[in-house]
């Protein structure tokens, strides 16, 4: 009975949202965002190609173990807080200082950070250290969700109207959603998908604008753009439709009918919409991928690297961009296991090795395909973690460090503001949970601008961008 009202409901939802936007006031960037809605002429015509690849680190990456202070003074502060051993040896959740020597990130142009801090990547990340030195990788320091810029005093203020903050901070599912969409759990569009909305008309096959090689996530859904899902092995055919079903061709036809037919029940309709899309797209994707030859290996010397497996299919899809009919794409892959409350010294190094190998393999693939400067890869995560230790792990935080990589990245240097190594400085909200000094909206807007989103359309991608000093952090030229 609600079916017939679908259009009406959608229209009312749109009007409701519009009135919310209007209520936010003319000064708000939301008002500008309306200009982008429903218009799809974001990108100039042509045949160029660009892709963004989000690597989501599920669980909340311990950024303090990914970028570790290396200069003696800051290392000592870090070691004291994180249980390091005497004489700059390992202890608690602190690696030995000497183990970091090979992965120090020293900007060749020189760059002075807060308290003269120098960082090293986790000791496992030798490949990305080399990419930094080549200028293809850059760390983004202390980025996290914000609605407006916040000082510590403003954060502590009880006036939440003047000093709004993201809802449900420190909660995994909500901050995953907030990172991806600017809203907590239940959001239905993310900034990758909102970029996709603007790119739909640039792609002759709009379905392949936003592709997830991991599970369902709001990141890649737009108000119109769909998140299309592939497995690490590509699109999955329904065997009983491709061939006969238990020896029956009528059975095969019946299966096709049942999986694709329309229904009036909302959930039945939605389920078959996905199943039909899967069946329809599989032939196109499989045919396009069959033409791809990619020499770059995504297989580690030992064991499996599931992140690399996902990035392998992304690289193959990029290689197949012409038969797939796409000029602008946003991809998402993920790696889990980052909720290191415990066993951080045992578990985190392996995660860093996995990330390092996978990102590097993907970069090598883009070099092989001649698209290194057309593909930008970036990390995201639920949140950063406490600088304080709970003995063998750390707890949920807020701001975090992230990595951006690609031929278009102005790498070999840091972006953002380095936090102090302290549990009571004014850049953290307790136990070293970082108060972000750069917002996710700025991080997103910088990439959106490189992707081709016009300045007037940025607010439709990054809704809070108008409240921040700059919409371009500069890491993409």
């Amino acid at each position, binding site marked *: 009975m609600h079916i017939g009202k*679908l259009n009406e409901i959608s229209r009312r939802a749109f009007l409701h949202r519009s009135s919310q936007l209007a209520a936010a006031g003319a000064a708000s960037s939301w008002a500008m965002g309306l200009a982008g809605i429903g218009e799809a002429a974001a990108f100039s015509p042509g045949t160029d190609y660009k892709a963004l690849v989000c690597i989501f680190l599920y669980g909340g990456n311990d950024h303090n173990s990914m970028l570790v202070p290396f200069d003696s003074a800051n290392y000592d502060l870090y070691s*004291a807080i994180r249980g390091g051993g005497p004489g700059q040896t390992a202890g*608690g959740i602190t690696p030995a200082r000497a183990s970091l020597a090979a992965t120090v990130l020293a900007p060749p142009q020189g760059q002075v950070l807060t308290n003269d801090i120098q960082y090293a990547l986790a000791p496992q990340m030798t490949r990305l250290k080399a990419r930094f030195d080549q200028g293809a990788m850059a760390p983004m320091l202390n980025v996290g969700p914000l609605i407006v810029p916040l000082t510590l005093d403003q954060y502590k203020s009880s006036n939440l*109207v003047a000093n709004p903050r993201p809802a*449900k901070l*420190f*909660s995994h599912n909500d901050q995953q959603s907030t990172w991806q969409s600017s809203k907590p759990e239940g959001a*239905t*569009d993310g900034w990758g*998908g909102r970029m996709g909305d603007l790119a739909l008309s640039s792609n002759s096959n709009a379905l392949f604008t936003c592709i997830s090689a991991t*599970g*369902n996530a709001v990141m890649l859904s737009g108000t*119109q753009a769909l998140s*299309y*899902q*592939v497995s*690490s*092995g590509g699109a*999955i055919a*329904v*065997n*009983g439709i491709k061939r006969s079903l*238990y020896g*029956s061709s*009528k*059975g095969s*036809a*019946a*299966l096709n009918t*049942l*999986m694709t*037919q329309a*229904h*009036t*029940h*909302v*959930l*039945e*309709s*939605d*389920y078959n*919409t996905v*199943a039909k899309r*899967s*069946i329809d*797209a*599989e032939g196109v994707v499989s045919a396009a991928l069959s033409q791809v030859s990619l020499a770059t290996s995504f297989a580690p010397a030992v064991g499996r690297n599931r992140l690399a497996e996902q990035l392998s299919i992304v690289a193959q899809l990029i290689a197949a961009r012409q038969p797939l009919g796409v000029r602008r794409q946003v991809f998402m892959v993920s790696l*889990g*296991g980052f909720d290191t*409350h*415990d*066993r951080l010294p*045992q578990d985190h190094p392996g995660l860093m090795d996995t990330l390092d190998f996978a990102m590097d393999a993907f970069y090598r693939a883009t070099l092989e395909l001649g698209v290194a400067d057309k593909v930008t890869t970036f990390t995201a995560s639920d949140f950063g973690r*406490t600088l304080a*230790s*709970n*003995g063998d*792990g750390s707890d*949920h935080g807020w701001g975090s460090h992230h990595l951006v990589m690609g031929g278009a990245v102005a790498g070999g240097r840091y972006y953002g503001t380095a936090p102090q190594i302290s549990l009571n400085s004014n850049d953290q*909200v307790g136990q070293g949970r970082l108060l972000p000094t750069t917002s996710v909206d700025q991080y997103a807007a910088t990439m959106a601008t490189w992707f081709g989103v016009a300045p007037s359309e940025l607010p439709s991608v990054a809704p809070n961008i108008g409240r921040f000093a700059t919409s371009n952090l500069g890491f993409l030229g």
Partner: protein
Amino acid sequence: MVLETLALQDSGAVEAEPGDMRQNVEPPTAKQSSRSGPVSPSNLAVAALALTTAACGGGGTSSGTPPGPGSTAQARKPQSDAEAAQFILRASLSVSTAEIANIKSVGFEPWLDAQIGAQIGQTGIAWLASRGFDQVTAANYFDNEYPGDYMIWNQLMTGSNGVRKRIALALSEYFVVSLTGLNFAWRSQAIAHYWDQLNARAFGNFRELLEDITLNPAMGYFLNTQGNRKEDTRTGRQPDENYAREVMQLFTIGLYQLNGDGTPKAGANGQPTETYTNDDVTNLARVFTGYDWDFTGNVDTLAVGSTTRKIPGTGYVTKAMTSDFTKWRSPPSSSQHSALAATFLGTSVPANTDATAALKIALDALFNHSNVGPFFARQMIQRLVTSNPSAAYVTRVANVFNNNGTGQRGDLRAVFKAILLDDEALAPATRTDPRFGKIREPMVRLVQWGRTFGALSTSGNWNIGNVSDSASRLGQSPLRSPSVFNFFRPGYVPSNTMASANGLVAPEFQLVNETSTSGYVNYMTTAIGSANGINNDVKAQYSAELAIAPDAAALVDHVSLLMAAAQLSDSTKAVIRQAVEDVVVTASSPDSEKLRRVYLAVLLVMASAEYLVQK
């Protein structure tokens, strides 16, 4: 806390536990935790339950159901096979023609009471032992997860207690522990004990279950209460906050203050009010310090082929974690429980309160928070009946949580009865309202298939394994959630769908994508019709279906009833029947041909959206 963990999972040398008098102490049994006194509420509930069951044949009053919808439902009987199957497929893991006849005869509530009152069958722990998986052998079962997968598939695919197990499975998606990543000796026994506790407490009291879960050895590892140490002002070390946060966010009160119907309360400025701050988390974290696994009576065994690696007995993964540090694997010199005062949610634990007393204060405060009823009720309705229950439905169930009619709070037996017997669940409109129902979870579909068609395990191991991969398997495996946030979120809204346009949530849709829709059908195609069954081990018998295979219409109606509560439309049944008739079969045809008909009927039903959405 590193030390205890490493000692168990690494292959290096482990200090021998000196033989001492504790070895002579009989450890508590798995079913009766050491904390449960003989007069605990749950034991009383069990006693009351037995009385109720005895009385209900005569339609006597049932404890736990207050006046209102329940009292009319009590006399209610299914008016058709379809109604009977619809009810049983929510309450249980599968339905049979015999059960349909039974519930039509006795009525909804008496049937349910009898199921609830049925004696618990073989436990997961007992099954593992019966298969020798508790032995230290060259196979190193203690280091492997696969016996845990065998265990849960055996539990779900076989035996009685379908209702109890269905409820326990729903609880396993609320108080989540995942076998994936349990990296310590006897992890399969640990997940079995967790499962056994959910089964044992499914119709007990929420407060007792909350305490069991809090001190459960697998949960202790999963959310880090095990080995959680008090703060150290010298080094700045803080208590681990993981359990404190998730016990509030996921197991009890949620993030927002709720109305009785489960909707967020509007605070000042119209916005929802958060239930806790980060200060509440850091304070409550102190309560969960000073616990570790209980090695009372432990005897080590050398791993086969090793002269150094000492494997503890299985007992420690079936005993509640203890704050008595003398019982730990490597006893420290003093308590690791925080002596600091802790203030959270307006409740205070005074400084120097011992661990047991502090835990009681904390769990009582959480249990008695007004959010728990609506928060828990809504999610359990979502698991069992419909993704989008009305506010009134949630209110009615929450009210039963708050008071079972005899003044008891948290009576799960009453809560689950209220969910299943509610007017909204039983209304005929459930079969026609295009918004009602939920997507059947993939693991529930496979279990339903196995139980309905008499699946057997050739090896006896129920080697179905981990079916989490969505490209080639089900995209969901029991007791293997990717995180404590379950396989999907109760508030998940699939983007750009009719559901989102209609303002509906669809939690299970978080598992639905272009890979999983194909992967599921491919997996079932093999499971249903391969010559040797799943992994050459688990194969359905289809004996009743073989007998009616020559009559295509009867076969389709039969499968439609048992799998989809006869909710397949005539047009869908016609599509399936025509495909079935493509295989020409007479009464004298060989079984191999009849089976092809059965395979087609079962697979096509299980691939149809009218089955996939349980209404």
